[in-house]
């Protein structure tokens, strides 16, 4: 048995081969059931069952190739549970099922980075098309597909943008544990996400999809088979998010080391709890909604088809029950990163720890009560509008808690303008603009004017790119030296920051003006009077893209060529992960530590926050 397993390999290569095999098996199998047509792509529009079955077969083959089915089959035969797989070994761990949470974190970093890059390239194509008011590069349908792929890829993949790489890697360490609660599920969440990304990318072979990232019917019901890729992508992302959130919460609830009380928990871990709880509860609504959409397309149910008793407003409601918490799934980890890093670079304790926690939890709770502001112009009952306007505006209060805690932390601090700190400070500026413009969209009269325009696009790019992506890079510069054992180049990091900050604002600030002037989203042609600002935005976007190339160059240069070993604690942090060697050993801790203090006591003496129990046998907690 062991020899057979070695022969097959169970790695990414096997997974791709079996994935392709599974795809064709699903396609042929479904055609054998549903009809005689094997006329491949020309028949795809009329063979939704085959498309769905092909991709489901592909995903099963992909997971089988990675070795994910071995364990369930062993359990079926009565073998006992086990926790670890391929945790020791060389680089091949990164291309296979590995249960070491640190390997999974690094897998996430590169995997999500790949799809972030693809999504970014789509943005460049969008801005290329918009250099001229009329068609110039793409036909309208192709343009809409590119817009949809950009939005869907970014929203889907970056939902796990911070929890995937950084929470997987650091949460067990920050709570004094050696593993996640369910290491195989942790690995599964990553590989499901990669399968999802592959599926979305192949939508171009089926004609793409015209709906943008929201997938609204009736366009969704009428779209060709590329829409099926969207449905499967988001469903897989939803499953991955649910399992990721469940694993995070279970880990934090059950595996904290002795002495790590709730008030000593690092604020980043509180952010992870908040985000994970939204993932566990919101993502299942998305999966169910996409299940309905898949049934509408494949077996002709009528959930969203008005002529058959359904309603496309049902889709809008269900989608945004997920969709608005999703916005905070993206934003909350950013809050947490900022609050985690500011004390380190201000050399001050985190101001208002409990207020910050209340802010994170308040946003989490309120994010469930605002979804209908996305439907203000969809003809909802007018009596509902004031409630959703008020609840949306209320959410600025707990968000303000985060701002206050952050600003009071740096007030009169000994600020060090390192690259991670610069990204955190930029978050204040960007998210403030994003938040203020959000008030216009939560307010019914101004929303009616600006809804569906470039104004709303500018708003959510300020909150999501300004809030999440900037903090993602803060986390990259802060933690990657710990993760890899190699320093990132500081000078290149600062060039990356300044170019990104300047050209991000230069790209998105003019979109507010364009929105007020009446330019709608998702159109390939526009009024010629808007061309100057559009050209300005396009050029800025290209320069923003170049800033990402600076980052990529820094990453490759620092990790593959220059290779300066990172100190164990380059930032002078009191947090526990920086008291471990770089990179962190497979077992994390020789002995499970006991926490005796909070992690933010900067300027309050050198006392350590934990002790190692003397004489405790290794491995016993």
């Amino acid at each position: 048995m062991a020899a057979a397993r070695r022969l097959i390999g169970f790695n990414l290569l096997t997974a791709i081969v079996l994935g392709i095999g599974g795809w064709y098996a699903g396609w042929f199998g479904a055609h054998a059931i549903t009809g005689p047509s094997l006329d491949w792509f020309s028949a795809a529009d009329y063979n939704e069952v085959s498309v769905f079955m092909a991709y489901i077969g592909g995903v099963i083959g992909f997971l089988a190739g990675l070795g994910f089915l071995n364990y369930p089959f062993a359990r079926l035969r009565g073998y006992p549970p086990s926790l670890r797989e391929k945790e020791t070994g060389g680089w091949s761990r990164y291309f296979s099922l590995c249960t070491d949470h640190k390997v999974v974190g690094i897998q996430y970093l590169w995997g999500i980075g790949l799809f972030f890059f693809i999504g970014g390239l789509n943005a460049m194509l969008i801005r290329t098309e918009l250099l001229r008011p009329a068609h110039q590069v793409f036909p309208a349908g192709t343009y809409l597909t590119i817009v949809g792929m950009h939005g869907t890829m970014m929203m889907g993949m970056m939902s796990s943008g911070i929890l995937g790489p950084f929470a997987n890697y650091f949460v067990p360490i920050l709570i004094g544990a050696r593993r996640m609660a369910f290491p195989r599920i942790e690995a599964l969440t990553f590989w499901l996400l990669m399968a999802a990304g592959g599926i979305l990318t192949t939508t171009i072979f089926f004609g793409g999809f015209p709906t943008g990232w929201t997938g609204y019917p009736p366009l969704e019901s009428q779209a060709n088979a590329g829409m099926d890729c969207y449905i499967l992508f988001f469903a897989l992302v939803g499953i991955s998010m649910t399992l990721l959130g469940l694993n995070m919460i279970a880990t934090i609830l059950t595996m904290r080391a002795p002495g790590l009380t709730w008030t000593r928990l690092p604020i980043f871990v509180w952010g992870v709890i908040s985000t994970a709880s939204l993932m566990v509860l919101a993502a299942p609504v998305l999966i169910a909604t996409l299940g309905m959409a898949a049934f509408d397309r494949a077996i002709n149910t009528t959930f969203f088809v008005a002529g058959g008793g359904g309603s496309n407003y049902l889709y809008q409601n269900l989608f945004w029950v997920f969709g608005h918490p999703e916005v905070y799934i993206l934003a909350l980890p950013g809050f947490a990163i900022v609050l985690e890093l500011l004390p380190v670079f201000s050399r001050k304790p985190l101001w208002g720890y409990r207020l910050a926690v209340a802010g994170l939890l308040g946003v989490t709770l309120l994010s469930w009560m605002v979804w209908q502001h996305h439907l203000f112009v969809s003809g909802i009952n007018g009596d509902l509008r004031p409630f959703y306007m008020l609840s949306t505006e209320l959410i600025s209060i707990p968000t303000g808690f985060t701002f206050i805690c952050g600003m009071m932390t740096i007030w009169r601090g000994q600020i060090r303008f390192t690259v991670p700190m610069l990204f955190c400070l930029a978050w204040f500026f960007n998210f403030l603009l994003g938040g203020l413009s959000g008030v216009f969209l939560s307010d019914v009269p101004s929303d009616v004017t600006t809804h569906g325009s470039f104004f709303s696009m500018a708003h959510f790019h300020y909150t999501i790119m300004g809030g999440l992506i900037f903090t993602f890079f803060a986390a990259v510069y802060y933690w990657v030296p710990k993760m890899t054992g190699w320093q990132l180049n500081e000078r290149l990091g600062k060039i990356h920051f300044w170019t990104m900050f300047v050209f991000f604002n230069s790209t998105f600030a003019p979109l507010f003006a364009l929105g007020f002037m009446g330019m709608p989203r998702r159109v390939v042609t526009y009024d010629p009077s808007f061309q100057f600002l559009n050209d300005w935005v396009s050029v800025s976007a290209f320069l923003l893209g170049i800033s990402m190339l600076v980052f990529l160059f820094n990453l490759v240069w620092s990790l593959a060529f220059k290779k300066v070993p990172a100190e164990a604690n380059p930032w002078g942090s009191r947090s526990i992960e920086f008291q471990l060697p770089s990179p962190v050993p497979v077992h994390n801790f020789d002995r499970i530590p006991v926490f005796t203090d909070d992690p933010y006591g900067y300027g309050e003496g050198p006392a350590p926050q934990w002790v190692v129990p003397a004489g405790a046998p290794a491995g016993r907690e």
Partner: protein
Amino acid sequence: MSAELASGDAGYEVLEGEPPEVLARNLVTAGYLLAGATAFFFVAFVFAFFYLRSIDSVSQWKPHGVDASIGWGTAIIACWVVSTVLVRLGELDQAADRRPQWRLKGLAALLLGLAGLVLQVVAWTQNGFGPTDGAFASVYVGWTAFLSLFVLLTLFWLETTLATSWRYRNELFGAAEVPAGHASGDPDRTAHDIRNPVDLNRAELAALGFYWTFLAGVAVVAWVILYLVA
């Protein structure tokens, strides 16, 4: 400080050996969280039911003749509810170390759960309407299909718990020990993950028993809405 917390040259193998209660806590907590996720999944169908019923678009909510058979529905739910009761009784047997009785009840619960699934498939063919016959038919087909999928996965979980219990049926509680790397699927593993599978069986059953009961509760809600309210 770093040398105290961890050193790179410490042997990985000697550092393993986790108290079984940690994994037990993981499992029980995951059972609760999974129930939360499941609840929100099916809330989408509850919402769809009442939303589409209230708007009754082009009078196609429930055209004449579209009625789910309450006889089939009751039989299906009965199978699943009795199955959960058997699992909970088996859990008590397991806790009292009456493991042969637990296995018997577990097997009966598994068979009843599968019987419910077979009845559901039969019901789809016998109801006299299909997924295209209006909004109620859509909700009925969608809700029951996904519920069946959830039940199938839960029965898989039950089977694995039962199979482990059966494989180690001759081992005394607290005394069983499996060979190193026995179940990890990793041919290179030489260390133990979980030394005593019988220990863990109890926690697995507690988590499973809770989740299966919760899912049966979802099935009862489905029965009330799809067969009585509709």
